[in-house]
């Protein structure tokens, strides 16, 4: 028997993977490998098959936001002539592209770009600008909005054709022919990683939840970039097993506090105030047990089915689905996770997500009586958030949830 190594925890593995992600990208770039920048929920399967190193500007912008380095870039972009109403991820990234250095986290500039319109339409113009400024090829994968409950046939054909066109573009850019057998393997791993991500995050259905919900946001960085890798799959399997063990032991999210209220967080995190947001909730005994947003990385389809893959990218992302889907999805989450309340982040950067919030809030209350609050903030622009206002709203939600629990007890 070989010497036994102390098994690393999923958190240690996550931190190692995060650290290596950008380091390895620099090494790859130096050795002549191609680096691609991609939107966060895109068919990375194609790039992974071609052995192209893929980085995610949204992930990078979020990291800069969380490490308090976003203002430098946001102000720079505004001085370049971009509007302060533009998505702050775009503002951070457009400036990073020009400045090329951050004291918080660095990534090499790209040789090509992959943009998928399933998350929003700002990304189309953002990536077109990058392509023009850097004079590099852009692969566009356009996923029309789903007004209907299923992807319409003509849209499926349109998206499938785009995948084949993207493959041709990649062959032209790399000078290599595309290996469809390798694609099958990558598809298989990607599906399995997505399944483990879902299984792990679903462990929060237990009461108390073994998962401190802000970990959803931490682990999300990995699902963004490691979905097509064996290491990614292993990480989420390990995380799942750790959480299952906690459930077995009856352990909740925290050692020093009980989970008093189970809540859903709607929208992107407010990265510059992540710690403040988390502590405020924790002090009130509020645990985020699920969220609409991290679920977007559960991209599953039949291995080998290119049209199915295209459809999955169009359907798994709620901003690309209609309002009825949103309501049904959130109501089912409310029941499945036994929610006491919902926090909506009215994110200045993301008009697409904000647009439906009021109606969503109204319909969810009507359907299942779960109280909720909306707070104003931004994913990376720290100028658009007020700590005191956030605290008052969260405390008010706690008071409403307490009242609701009291009534239920009385009933």
């Amino acid at each position, binding site marked *: 028997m070989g010497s036994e190594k102390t098994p690393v925890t999923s958190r240690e593995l996550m931190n190692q993977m995060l650290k290596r992600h950008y380091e390895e990208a620099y090494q790859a770039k130096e050795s002549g490998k191609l680096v691609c920048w991609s939107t966060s929920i895109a068919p990375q399967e194609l790039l992974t098959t071609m052995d192209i190193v893929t980085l995610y500007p949204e992930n990078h912008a979020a990291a800069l936001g969380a490490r308090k380095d976003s203002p430098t870039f946001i102000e720079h972009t505004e001085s370049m002539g971009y509007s302060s109403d533009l998505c702050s991820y775009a503002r951070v990234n457009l400036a990073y592209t020009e400045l090329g250095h951050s004291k918080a986290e660095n990534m090499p500039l790209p040789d090509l770009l992959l943009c998928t319109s399933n998350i929003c339409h700002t990304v189309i113009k953002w990536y077109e600008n990058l392509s023009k400024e850097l004079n590099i090829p852009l692969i566009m994968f356009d996923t029309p909005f789903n007004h209907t409950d299923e992807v319409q046939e003509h849209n499926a054909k349109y998206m499938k054709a785009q995948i084949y066109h993207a493959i041709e573009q990649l062959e032209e850019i790399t000078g290599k022919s595309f290996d469809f057998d390798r694609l099958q393997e990558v598809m298989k791993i990607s599906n399995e990683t997505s399944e483990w991500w879902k299984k792990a995050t679903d462990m929060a259905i237990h009461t108390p939840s073994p998962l401190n919900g802000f970990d959803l946001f931490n682990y999300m960085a990995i699902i963004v970039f490691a979905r097509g890798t064996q290491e990614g799959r292993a990480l989420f399997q390990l995380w799942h097993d750790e959480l299952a063990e906690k459930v077995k032991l009856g352990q909740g999210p925290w050692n020093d506090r009980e989970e008093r209220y189970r809540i859903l967080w709607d929208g992107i995190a407010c990265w510059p105030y992540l710690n403040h947001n988390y502590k405020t909730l924790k002090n009130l005994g509020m645990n985020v047990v699920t969220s609409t947003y991290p679920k977007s990385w559960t991209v599953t389809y039949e291995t080998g089915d290119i049209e199915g893959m295209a459809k999955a990218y169009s359907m798994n992302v709620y901003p690309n689905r209609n309002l009825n889907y949103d309501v049904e999805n959130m109501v089912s989450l409310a029941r499945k996770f036994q929610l006491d309340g919902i926090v909506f982040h*009215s994110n200045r950067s993301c008009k697409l997500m904000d647009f439906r919030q*009021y109606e969503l*809030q109204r319909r969810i*209350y009507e359907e299942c009586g779960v*109280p*909720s*609050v*909306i707070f*104003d903030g931004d994913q990376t622009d720290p100028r*658009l*958030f*007020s700590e*005191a*206002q956030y*605290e*008052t*709203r969260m*405390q*008010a939600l706690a*008071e*409403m949830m307490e*009242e*609701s629990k009291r*009534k239920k007890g009385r009933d």
Partner: protein
Amino acid sequence: MFLGIDIGSSSSKAVLLDEEKNILAAEVYPLGTGTRGVQEVLQLAFAATKRSPDSVLYTVATGYGRMNYKGADKQITEISCHAKGMRFLQPDVRTIIDIGGQDTKVIRLDESGGIENFVMNDKCAAGTGRFLEVMARVLDCHISDLSALAGKGQNPVPISNMCTVFAESEVISHLSNNVSLENVASGAVLSIAKRVSGMAKRLGAVPRVMMTGGGSLNHSLVAAISEQLELAIDVPANPQVIGALGAAVFAHTLYQKQS
């Protein structure tokens, strides 16, 4: 005796209740959190009761400065306190519109007085008391005279800017174009009424509607919101102390529970 203290952004309010929930004192001092307003209002309140501060059995703090008040046994948000206070005075209230210094909120209550939902203004000062203060300053009148001035305006001039700073410039430009003070004042009041009634409509205002906070001292504003909502609005006798009253009622209840 039970103390409810509401430490707002621009004023401090205190209410003292006796064991039978009779109001012994209800005071307002026009200085908010981080100032001597808290000490001043407490002095006024205790002087009115002629009882010693030592006889306070339980204290609940609310408002923007609630976390910084050392003497509190518990902090409760102004949303719950306004609901509690208004309901204590007026059991059939279902909608509360509160216009404070930097927060405007609309709260909808269910039949048993529980909070069904609420909305508050975002970071922007539009639709808050601060907007009224800025307008009064530009119009060169005291905040307490703004209502009467606006009441005289026959043709309110539209103020289209939501941003308080831009709205101020807009008002200045109207004044320099010789629009009367009355019509500008009336326009400013109408602008805030539209914003607040928009919030109330979004929430679904149901009668009986009551208005609280410093903003409700402006009768022209109350009338304008009522017109926008097409609903009657009532204002309690001392609308600024409702949050503090709710806090005092909570203090009474929590003390009973504790003992």
